[in-house]
């Protein structure tokens, strides 16, 4: 067994052990703490699968933001949730059903098709006209740009869904925690030190995404994280959700994407196609706007429903 292989086996064993822990642990809180570590390990698995773009996304969103969200929820629900399970019969039936599904999936994995069909050559062959160097960016913004556009609408709807749960009297209020006692020393220090670095990283990630792993998502997530740190540290309040600027920032990315897509009707081969020679600059414009919107949207989604009205 080679060294790399031993590493993979250890990684998989660890992942499975943690997953079992997450499912059976008694307290929700410890299950979540372990889940965050699990997310980071999954990100390593993605690197081992030669998918660095996915690894970055998983680490930032799958582990980081999701973990933060769940931890916050567990803290607020602490002690209230009766950890219960359903009856033994149902558990046995469910276990058999899930085992069947796992076995089915495993069987498919172990018997790959005789001829592996891949779109990698097609994706590479059509990449040069777009001027992009990263084929994943090519799929996200050229071949399957339509998916990417719709998924931005999904993100927007998630924000709308979160906001829709606001109690009526707090509509138009401010989400996120309120830090009354003045900025917390230690966190405030972090919140002053980190954002300048983070913003540079976010810009770099977005910019480099055209040719190397990275892109609007990963950049936007870093941006969101920086913003949340600043808010948690009490250096700045979250904006109230009825502000025009907030609404504008949330929409500007998808709107520019849609606008450029529409321009394709007149200037290129149709919806979401780019005029020859202008593909790369247009995609970068879209990505920059999306980074901003994704950052603001993810941040607002993570902050949750408004908790109080703005002080007059």
């Amino acid at each position, binding site marked *: 067994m080679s060294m790399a292989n031993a590493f993979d*086996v250890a990684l998989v064993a660890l992942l499975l052990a943690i997953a079992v822990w997450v*499912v059976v642990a008694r307290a929700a809180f410890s299950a979540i703490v372990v889940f965050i570590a699990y997310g980071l390990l999954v990100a390593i698995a993605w690197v081992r*699968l030669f998918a660095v773009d996915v690894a970055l996304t998983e680490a930032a969103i799958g582990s980081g933001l999701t973990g933060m969200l769940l931890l916050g929820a567990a803290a607020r629900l602490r002690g209230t949730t009766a950890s219960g399970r359903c009856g033994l019969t149902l558990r046995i039936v469910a276990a058999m059903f899930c085992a069947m599904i796992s076995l089915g999936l495993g069987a498919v994995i*172990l018997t790959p098709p005789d001829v592996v069909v891949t779109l990698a050559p097609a994706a590479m062959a059509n990449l040069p006209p777009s001027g992009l160097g990263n084929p994943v960016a090519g799929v996200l913004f050229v071949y399957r740009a339509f998916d990417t556009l719709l998924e931005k609408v999904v993100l927007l709807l998630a924000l709308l869904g979160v906001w829709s749960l606001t109690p009526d009297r707090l509509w138009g209020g401010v989400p996120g925690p309120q830090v009354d006692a003045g900025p917390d020393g230690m966190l405030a220090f972090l919140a002053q030190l980190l954002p300048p670095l983070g913003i540079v990283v976010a810009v770099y990630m977005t910019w480099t995404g055209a040719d190397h792993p990275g892109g609007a998502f990963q950049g936007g997530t870093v941006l969101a994280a920086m913003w949340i740190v600043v808010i948690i540290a009490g250096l700045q309040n979250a904006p109230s959700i009825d502000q025009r600027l907030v609404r504008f920032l949330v929409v500007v990315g998808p709107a520019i994407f849609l606008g450029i897509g529409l321009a394709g009707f007149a200037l290129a081969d149709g919806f979401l196609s780019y005029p020859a020679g202008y593909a790369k600059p247009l995609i970068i414009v879209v990505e920059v706007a999306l980074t901003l919107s994704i950052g603001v949207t993810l941040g607002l989604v993570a902050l949750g429903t408004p908790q109080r009205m703005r002080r007059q």
Partner: protein
Amino acid sequence: MNAATLFGICGAALAGLGLFGLITNSEPLRKILAFNLLGTGTFLIFGVVARRGAAAGLGGDPVPQALVITGIVVAFSATAMAVVLLLRLFEESGKATLDPNEADGASTAEDDS
């Protein structure tokens, strides 16, 4: 067994575990957690499919990789919505359970006034 197959088996097991947690855990927060396990399992299997499609000088087929990125964002959105729903349910009712024994059907249309 090569690395891709190993991770594929891992993904299949994770999907089964997540599904089990989603069905049997009665606590909504744990259901949400299990849903995320199920999601990563699914994505890992897709990643293995991508890895097997390595060609044209790439380490993997970029199409499934891009689809997984889209999927991760969608899964995050779902998690966020579920978490906020749960927190609001707790605020309104003081309970964070989906106890099926309660006759919630009867009270749903209570405030049609």
